[in-house]
């Protein structure tokens, strides 16, 4: 889906994005996309298709070789990961997504205290985020490393949201969680969207992702092979796209 001239400014606009590791070849190979505000985009694809590399590139952890990334119209392509947070891009990695040796309170403090020029952060925002994640609000002195996988994920969401992001990038939030926690996590993602944040959700659990997503993008070998409303993506489409040589 490409935004039309009459559409509102996309929350996230990516043009001809190429990225890779070191001196190796491109992993992300010419991706274009526009995500409208307050939508959930599910990024799905087979193992090794470049999904995680794609969101790492958006977050600034993988250097852009070509192309551009805009958040609510502002070009963030050349910004450091830290400055992208100030520009409205938040990222929750798949693993090690909290500071294990810091307490819950310290994790939450650190989420905003170095963001001097980010609007909308402060006590009001903190109160709203804590309402969304009561699991982490009541145990400020607990070491984050002693939380369960699901609780860590909630804390990571809370930390990312405290920065009042326009776009939240989630890299496989359900990885390693039991089915009961997967539902909790997906409901948390919906609550995040309802709070006005655009979500880019990378997921291996395709069924769970498509249930809550508005749009879906299929990545194969670092390239966009399908973009469609999530409700219109059928199992047959996915089987064809996921199989080697199927696109």
């Amino acid at each position, binding site marked *: 889906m490409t935004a039309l001239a009459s559409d509102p400014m996309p929350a996230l606009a990516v043009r001809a994005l190429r990225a890779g590791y070191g001196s190796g070849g491109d992993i992300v190979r010419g991706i274009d996309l526009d995500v409208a505000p307050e939508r959930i985009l599910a990024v799905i694809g087979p193992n090794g298709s470049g999904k995680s590399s794609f969101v790492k590139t958006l*977050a*600034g*952890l993988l250097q852009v070789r070509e192309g551009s990334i805009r958040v609510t119209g502002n070009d963030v392509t050349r910004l*450091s*990961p*830290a400055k*992208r*947070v*100030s520009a409205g891009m*938040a*990222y929750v*990695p798949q693993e*090690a*997504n*909290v*500071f*294990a*040796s*810091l307490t819950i309170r*310290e994790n939450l*403090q*650190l*989420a*905003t*205290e*170095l*963001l001097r020029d*980010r609007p909308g952060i402060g006590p009001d925002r903190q109160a709203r985020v804590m309402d969304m994640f009561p699991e982490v609000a009541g145990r400020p002195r607990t*070491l*984050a*490393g*002693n939380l369960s996988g699901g609780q860590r994920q909630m804390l990571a969401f809370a*930390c990312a949201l405290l*920065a009042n992001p326009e776009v939240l990038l989630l890299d496989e939030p359900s990885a390693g969680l039991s089915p009961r926690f997967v539902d909790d996590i997906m409901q948390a993602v919906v609550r995040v969207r309802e709070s006005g944040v655009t979500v880019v959700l990378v997921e291996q659990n395709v069924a769970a992702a498509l249930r809550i997503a508005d749009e879906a993008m299929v990545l194969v070998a670092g390239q966009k092979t399908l973009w469609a409303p999530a409700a219109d993506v059928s199992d047959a489409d996915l089987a064809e796209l996921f199989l080697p040589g199927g696109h």
Partner: protein
Amino acid sequence: MVAQLVVNGLVTGLLLALPALGLTLVFGILKFPNFAIGAMLTFGAYTAYLANVAAGLPLAMAAVLAALATGLVAVACDALVFSRLRDRGAITLLVASMGVSLVLENVCRFFFGNATRNFDVAVSRPLRWEGVRINHEQIVTACVVLGCLVFLQLLLRASPLGRAIRAVADNPSLAAVRGVERQTVVRITWFLAGALAAVAGVLAALDRAVDPLLGWNYQIPVFAAAILGALGSPVGAVVGALVIGLAEELSSLVIPTSYRQAVSFSLILFLLLFRSRGLFGAKAVRK
């Protein structure tokens, strides 16, 4: 006799705590042991000597200037050497720090020669309490080091900068996407390490004298202290330093004092063989 050795050991341990903290802070965020910590200690002592004897400043002010100057030198070392080798691995950085150590030590030799020098301070009589002799220098050392430790503990535990340092040590990529500029934190940590080494250099020279090998005398005990406390753990470094200080002093009950450094070597050997994580290295949390 034993009480005297305990007092001496505690003061020696406190003196070791500052460079051990500098070593462990840099290790925490950059994951390499900075071999130049001893040379930074020497450089700090000479800078303070320059300010105290050549410029005529009181030693306290000279120590502050030495801390600032050595902190800036440590930042310069990072900018000129370590940051360019950041992605080359711990062994490369360790070897580079040996080179930096030689350069700093020989800069001191070039300007000041090999002769030992002393600060311009009044000689004062030692205190005697219950048969234990306590030097003026030991009291100064204990007070200054304890003040530095309280300051550092507050900085690391109760300030945004301290949380940022601990966050970068824990997970640098996550810190970056939480708004922490790693390079800024790295430079501030280098400054702290240099300043701590310089303060230790002034205190060490107050006890001994300023000479080009001043830092080298502390190199092995400082490494032993940091390893004993688990590299990367600030509290561990302080406890490790106190244990090393006490062990070195009390060892004189059973071995000649000239073999004192063998205690540090033996402890390092023991730790590497039986407890490579150090005393505070048990994984309390899952990473």
